[in-house]
């Protein structure tokens, strides 16, 4: 490939990544909008209806202006899916990083990268960088896919759900009901303290903490509000009986949906469950093909 062609290709990738980040940060997927509108119709309490309507109105404005849904624009995470005959290299990874920086700059992302060495960053003693684009991308996950090409999935992970997320070992005693009961118990108090409800529960179940967390992120990407399996429906139903409601104001709209991703399991009495109560703004996910 000629140098000019290479540069043209680089710019194309950077632009696609930038636009995907902005899309993830400023809009809901259609299945989520439809579900929210249905919940508004069903809601009888005027105050709770107002909360749900304001969430829909907020999305309309953010989508139109391509501005953040929430001021906590989140930490960018990427799952890269690689099809047969496709390859990626150092240059592509660099372009992905450039696209992320450009997206954060244009959105704009919240300038929240912390300055300093290890201890200074932990203690936040040297203040923050001023530019949104100084925020670093989390480590990239990579998976195979059947379709040819490269698929870039971008997630923007907010701080509130991170405070409430947990990864825990559960002794399953060969019963799915024990896993579900534990998920319900772990979730209830965290959702109440999350505040930004109704939430979406993202769950990954795997062999290790790393694997369970990766599966939880995959659940956020693949989950659909209009396509729920039996376990997902049961978890949503039981949590909606908790009467936490939108913003903790009580009522049946505590959880919009559950997104579950179950991976390979260990020959053992233990399962590792990663649980993330995603706030009403999340999952902030968008994808593009290269």
């Amino acid at each position: 490939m000629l140098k000019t062609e290479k540069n043209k290709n680089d710019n194309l990738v950077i632009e696609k990544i930038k636009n995907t980040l902005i899309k993830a940060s400023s809009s809901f997927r259609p299945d989520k909008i439809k579900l929210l509108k249905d919940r508004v119709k069903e809601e009888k309490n005027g105050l709770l209806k107002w909360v749900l309507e304001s969430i829909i109105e907020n999305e309309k404005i953010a989508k139109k202006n391509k501005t953040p849904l929430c001021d906590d624009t989140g930490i960018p995470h990427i799952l890269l899916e690689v099809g047969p005959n496709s390859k990626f290299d150092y240059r592509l990874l660099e372009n992905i990083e450039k696209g992320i920086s450009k997206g954060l700059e244009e959105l704009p992302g919240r300038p929240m990268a912390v300055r300093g060495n290890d201890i200074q960053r932990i203690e936040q003693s040297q203040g923050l960088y001023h530019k949104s684009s100084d925020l670093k991308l989390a480590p990239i996950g990579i998976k195979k896919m059947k379709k040819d090409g490269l698929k870039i999935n971008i997630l923007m992970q907010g701080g509130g759900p991170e405070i409430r997320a947990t990864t825990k070992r559960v002794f399953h005693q060969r019963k799915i009901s024990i896993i579900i009961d534990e998920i319900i118990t772990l979730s209830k108090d965290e959702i109440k303290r999350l505040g930004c409800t109704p939430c979406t529960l993202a769950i990954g179940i795997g062999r290790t903490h790393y694997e369970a967390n990766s599966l939880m992120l995959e659940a956020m990407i693949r989950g659909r509000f209009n396509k729920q399996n039996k376990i997902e429906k049961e978890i949503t139903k039981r949590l909606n009986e908790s009467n936490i409601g939108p913003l903790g104001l009580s009522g049946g709209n505590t959880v919009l949906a559950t997104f579950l991703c179950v991976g390979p399991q260990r020959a053992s009495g233990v399962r590792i469950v990663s649980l993330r109560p995603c706030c009403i703004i999340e999952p902030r996910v968008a994808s593009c093909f290269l």
Partner: protein
Amino acid sequence: MSLILTTPISDLDIKKMSVRDIVYISGYIYAGRDSVLPKIVDLIKKKKDIKGVNLVGSVIFHTAVSSAGVGPTSSNKVEIESSFFDLSRAGVKIHLGKGALGDKTVKILKKFNSVYAVVPPISALLSSKILEKKIVAFPEEGMEALHLLKVEKLPIIVAIANGESIYSS
């Protein structure tokens, strides 16, 4: 019930509030969160004034202020919830954020006749309610510095007032 109030907030205004009321706030409010609230508490404890800051009758919105907008952060973070006692004692009337708070905080708010209110995470919508913004203290904290915001009809929902809490089971 819905109320329309202009800052500063009086003791009488607080007495009128009940949980689940929507209150529309206009006027000047402060914005501060994890980094800056403990610093303010420290100054209050040392009986030092913060130049240009008057907490009597004030509202503190637990938010960062940046080009990405404003929006509530979790008020139950240690740095924030532990600030309620000293800030309320110093005259803060409305603590504005999100998430359930403990019974101890409910008692603190009652003792000082202050309230806790929540706001939905609607940053795009809230941007039209912010008329002015400026840093008033601790500029080194960047988006987490203490900001003064001029707001117009900022919609908030009362979550804890007069010893009552929407989070009590």
